């Protein structure tokens, strides 16, 4: 082995490098590949030409900056917008600290994020917005340097991430009449909140259901299986409709607004899928682990908490990220019920008489935002998967 590598290092075989060689190997290696390449090039040329002509001459992109705030936060009142920025700052600090502590993937995300803020600050936006953007950037940078190398902080930061969720909810909502009613949450903000709630709240539900489904007590297993299979057999939109009309019927006396109803619907839906993901992890735990735990004298609860779940959950992280991506896209269904999430905003902008006939522009912009988030998450998921594969203990 070593010898072979050595000789390769000394004398690379001829013709393995160079652009011409690469072209020949990857595009023109056989006659049909040559044909395919040419065909594809022609198609690409026309597709790009058509799209670019439209995008630069016909499309009216004014609609995007004119409604930008609507896209981001919906009808969140302007004078309360600091709440959103505070939430962003909390996340920025956590992001910066984590980037400093763990490096790798988190650092890459932090860099991209601060890039986004820098570019936003350069755009022709209001002065205050520019200030907020630069502030977020500063938060990331300062906390990054604070966090660097202090590995002892890690458990605290993890706790901080968990705690940040309720804290941010409170920050965004405020209290009573002085705050911002959830019915005013909208745009990308609402989309993100719905997706995060769907995952975070459904997580314990999913773990519970999965444990029930794996139980050796038949009654518990059946109840759980029935729930999971019923929910998974039905489209999300049906569950959202049901949540919308049935929650007021089943819970008379409670004033549950539409945003909350959607959150409940999404959580129950997501819980069933989460359960199946977790179950996959549980099934991957060898029987010997249970036996060894029993032999040491641990009872069921201890075995589950200390032996089974830590291993099972670690192995299902990629699947959970996958579910998060799916859920992020699925939150767009709330626009059918009448909430103004990102897609809802897009629909309402199109319906605005000032911007008639701009469906393509508006939907493409919304699609680009969805794409950016989903793609970033699937990138992260692949990264985590390789990480888990390498340091497997």
């Amino acid at each position, binding site marked *: 082995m070593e010898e072979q590598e050595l000789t390769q290092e000394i004398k690379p075989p001829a013709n393995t490098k160079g652009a011409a060689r690469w072209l020949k190997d*990857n*595009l023109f*290696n056989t006659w049909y*590949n040559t044909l*395919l*390449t040419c065909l*594809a*090039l022609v198609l*690409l040329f026309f597709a790009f030409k058509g799209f670019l002509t439209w995008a630069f001459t016909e499309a009216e992109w004014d609609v995007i900056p004119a409604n930008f705030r609507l896209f981001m936060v919906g009808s969140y009142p302007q004078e309360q917008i600091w709440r959103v920025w505070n939430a962003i700052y909390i996340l920025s600090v956590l992001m910066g600290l984590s980037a400093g502590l763990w490096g790798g993937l988190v650092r890459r995300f932090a860099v991209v994020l601060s890039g986004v803020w820098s570019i936003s600050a350069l755009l022709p936006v209001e002065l205050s917005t520019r200030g907020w953007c630069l502030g977020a950037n500063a938060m990331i940078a300062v906390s990054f340097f604070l966090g660097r190398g202090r590995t002892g902080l890690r458990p605290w930061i993890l706790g901080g991430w968990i705690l940040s969720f309720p804290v941010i909810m409170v920050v965004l909502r405020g209290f009573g009449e002085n705050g911002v009613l959830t019915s005013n949450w909208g745009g990308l903000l609402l989309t993100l909140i719905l997706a995060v709630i769907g995952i975070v709240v459904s997580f314990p539900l999913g773990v519970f259901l999965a444990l029930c489904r794996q139980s050796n*007590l*038949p*009654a*518990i297993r059946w*109840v759980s299986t029935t729930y999971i*299979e*019923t929910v*998974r*057999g*039905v*489209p999300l*939109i*049906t569950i959202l*409709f*049901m949540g919308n*009309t*049935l929650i*007021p*019927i*089943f*819970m*008379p006396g409670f004033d549950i607004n539409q945003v909350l109803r959607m959150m409940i619907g999404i959580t129950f839906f997501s819980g069933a899928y989460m359960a199946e993901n977790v179950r996959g992890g549980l099934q991957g735990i060898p029987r010997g682990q249970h036996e060894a735990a029993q032999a040491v004298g641990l009872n069921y609860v201890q075995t589950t908490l200390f032996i089974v779940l830590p291993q099972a959950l670690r192995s299902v992280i990629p699947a959970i990220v996958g579910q998060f*991506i799916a859920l992020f*896209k*699925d939150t*767009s*269904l709330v*626009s*059918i019920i009448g909430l103004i999430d990102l*897609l809802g905003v*897009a*629909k309402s902008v*199109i319906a605005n008489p000032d911007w008639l006939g701009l*469906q*393509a522009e508006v*939907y*493409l912009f*919304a*699609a680009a935002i*969805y*794409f950016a988030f*989903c*793609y970033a998450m*699937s990138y992260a998921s692949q990264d985590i998967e390789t990480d888990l594969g390498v340091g497997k203990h």
Partner: protein
Amino acid sequence: MENNSPKVEPGKIPFWRDVRVLRVLFQGIFLLGVILLLAILYRNMLEGLRGLGLTLNLNFFQDEAGFGISEGITYDPSDTYLKAFWVGVLNTLKVSIIGIVCATFIGLFFGIARLSSNWLIRTIAAAYVECFRNVPLLLQIVFWYTAVVAQLPNVRESLSLFGGAFINNRGVYLPSPEPTSSLKIWLWFLGAGLLLAVFLYVLRWRQLQRLDRPGFRAKWALPAFLIVALCGWFLTPGRPFTLDLPALQGFNYQGGMSFSPEFSALLVGLSIYTSAFIAEVVRSGIQSVVKGQREAARSVGLKEGQTLRLVVLPQAVPIIVPPLTSQYLNLAKNSSLAVAIGFPDLLGIGRTMMLQTGQSIPVFAIIMVSYLVMSLTTSAAMNWYNRRITRIGR
């Protein structure tokens, strides 16, 4: 030894320590909790319904629906609600089945393209997959509906394909085959061909057994059947089918097959979105086999085509089928997004029924049952298939 004094009292276990009793007890408490929860919900429901001035009632399914449905099987507003719902079920099935067929073909195409040795093809396929699976399906459907289909030229300026198919903002119009009176004669030919084919199939099977060689059993039967069918086609007086071409009459095209703009947008959206996932399923299925197996097959001396047919596909197909089925199920469930653009699927019609009668609970029940029947039958078929496959595989 002191502590070895007998502590045994067989048969006398206090119930709170007896594993067997505990098992039953625990399940009992759990079931009781579930039943209690359901009971509370039921009580709340009755109370809530009273508050709305409604009573649970299933008789309305037999009442006259009174609303029109834009497409589907023959239906009249004077038909019952049940009939109206049935129209929706069939519409859902129609768009799902056609969507599954389209998505499979597109997905197969891009899945194989992702494995191409040609960098450009591979990259285009990857870009296709990433673009379409990372954008919400609802957005895609709404985009196709409002930004593409609705922007097509009007009837007078329809896009025409080969003079027989027309596309405009009112829908898609395709020629359809219409059976003629001579179809019967041709069917006789087909029957005869089938008999011959069965006979040849058995003959070939016997021969292969005698030769003790593997081979393609339908090698004689298939061409024989095709030849008979083809001869029949030309020998039949007149043609068994005529093409019914859509033609502009008055304000719209008449004749042939037509698909509404809603149906077309939904179909395109569902097919493209699902095809991106199917492409991934196909790619990873084939890739999971290819690595070591292909080399092994080569080392045994199989040719490229034989490797694919005898080694790769038999192993890849069982890997691909389960996730493929779940994609099909997803497509069927996603067809419910039709409500966003007004295609009358079962959910859309159910919703209209709810709005008209106020009976939301029974209507939701029938909607859920419809979807559950679809998914449970499919997963039952899937389980049966899996059991068969694993038995062969082991």
